[in-house]
C-alpha cells in the first residue's frame, strides 16, 4: 500500500510530467494507428481483388511479422535516430499487417450474391464498395483494428527504449534509479496495463456489436 501511495504521489507531482508522458503515449499510439489504417486498409482492399498477388503479399507480411516489435524498433534506430518520429514509424509498421490482412480477408468473405445484386441495381464500383462490401467486411476489419490497436499501445511502452517517450519512461526511470525508487515503475506499469485492457475490451465490444447488428439485419 505504501508503494502505491508513493507511486500516486509521484504521478500527481506536476514536475514529474505524468500527464505529458500519458499524452505522448496516446498520441504515439493514435498517430501510428491512423497511419497504419491509411496504408493498410486501402492496400488490403486493393489486394483482395487479385488472388495470387494477395497470397504472395499476405504471406510476405506474415514472414516479416515473425520479427518481434522490439527488433523492429531497434532496426530503424541507426537510420532514423532516436525520438518520437522513429517510434511512430516503427509502430506504424506494426499496425499495418493486422489491418491489411483482415481487410483482405473481410473483403474476400463478402457474399458474391450481394455484390451481384448491387451490380444489378446499377451501382458504381465506388458505390458498391461503400454501401455493400465495406459494411459487410466491417466485423472482420474491426477485428484487425483491435489486434493492431492492442499491439500498438503495448509496443508504445517500448518507445522509451529508443527515446520516444511515453509512459514507458517511468519504467525506465524506475529501473535506472534502483530499489529505493521501484515505486516509479508502477507509475508507468499501472496506466499502461489499463490502457491495453481498455483497448482490448472496448474494441472487442465494438467488434461484437457490429457483428451482432449485421446478423440481426
Amino acid at each position, binding site marked *: 500500500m505504501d*508503494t502505491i501511495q508513493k507511486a500516486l504521489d509521484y504521478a500527481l507531482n506536476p514536475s514529474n510530467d505524468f500527464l505529458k508522458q500519458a499524452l505522448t503515449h496516446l498520441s504515439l499510439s493514435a498517430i501510428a494507428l491512423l497511419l497504419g489504417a491509411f496504408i493498410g486498409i486501402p492496400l488490403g482492399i486493393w489486394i483482395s481483388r487479385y488472388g495470387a498477388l494477395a497470397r504472395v503479399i499476405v504471406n510476405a507480411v506474415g*514472414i516479416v*511479422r*515473425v*520479427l*518481434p*516489435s*522490439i*527488433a523492429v524498433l*531497434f*532496426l530503424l*534506430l*541507426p*537510420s532514423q535516430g*532516436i525520438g518520437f518520429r522513429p517510434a511512430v514509424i516503427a509502430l506504424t509498421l*506494426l499496425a499495418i499487417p*493486422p489491418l491489411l490482412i483482415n481487410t483482405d480477408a473481410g473483403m474476400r468473405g463478402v457474399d458474391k450474391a450481394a455484390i451481384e445484386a448491387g451490380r444489378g441495381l446499377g451501382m458504381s464500383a465506388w458505390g458498391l464498395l461503400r454501401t455493400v462490401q465495406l459494411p459487410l467486411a466491417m466485423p472482420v476489419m474491426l477485428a484487425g483494428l483491435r*489486434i493492431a490497436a*492492442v*499491439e500498438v*499501445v*503495448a*509496443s508504445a*511502452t*517500448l518507445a522509451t*527504449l*529508443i527515446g520516444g517517450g511515453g509512459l*514507458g519512461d517511468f*519504467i*525506465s526511470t*524506475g*529501473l535506472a534509479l534502483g*530499489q529505493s525508487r*521501484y*515505486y516509479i*515503475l*508502477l507509475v*508507468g*506499469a*499501472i496506466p*499502461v*496495463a489499463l490502457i*491495453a*485492457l481498455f483497448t*482490448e475490451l472496448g474494441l472487442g465490444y465494438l467488434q461484437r456489436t457490429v457483428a451482432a447488428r449485421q446478423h440481426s439485419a
Partner: protein
Amino acid sequence: MSDLVFTQYLFDNFDIVWPRVLEHLTIVGISLAIALLISMPVGLFLSRKQSIATPVLGVLGVIYTIPSFALFAFLVPITGIGPQPAIIALVAYSLVVLVRNTMVGFNGVDPSVIEAARGMGMSGRQQLWRIEVPLALPVIVAGMRIATLSTIGLATIAAWIGAGGLGQLLKDGINNPSKLYAGVIAVGVMAMGADLLFRLLERGVAVKGTKRSARMAALPAIPKEA
C-alpha cells in the same frame, strides 16, 4: 553503414554474441518447459470441467493483455531484477496460449471416436494416450509455436530488467549499429528458425484427412508483440 559491417560484427564477435544466444535460449527454454508442464494437465482438466474453464481463461486473458514491459515492472519490486521476473512473466504469457489450445484440442476430439475406443475395450489411460492425445496434438503444437515465438520476442525486452540474452546486444547497441544489427539479426533468425521448426512439427503431427477445425480459427494465431 555498409551492409557488410553488421554481418561482419556477427562473425568477428562470435565470442560476444554466442553467450547472449545461449542466455536467450536458456530463458526461453526454461519458460516454455515450465509452461508446458503446467498447461498440459490444466488444459486436460479444463476440457472436462467447462464450468471452471470460462473464469480461468478470463483471468489468463487479462494477464495476456498486459504489455510485457509493464508486467516486468510489476514483478521487479517483488523479485528484484534478473532472469527470475522475466521467466515468471514469460511462463504466464505462454500458459494463456498453451492452456487454451490444450483445452480446445481435447474438446475437439469427436466423442464417437472415444466411444469406439471404449467399445474396443480400451482402458481410460489407453483412450487418453492412444486416441485423445494424438487427435489433440495438432492444436497443442500450434499453440506451442505461438508460445515459442512470443517468448523469443518478449525475452528480448527482458534485457532491460537485467535478464541478459539477445536484448543486451540491442541495449548496448544504441550507439553501436553493428552490435545492434547483430542483435536484431540473431533475434530474427531465432524467431524464424523456431517458426519453421514448429510449422514442420505441425505438419508431422497433423491428423490425416482432417482440416483445421473452425474452433482453431478462433484461437490467437499470432505471437504477442510486446
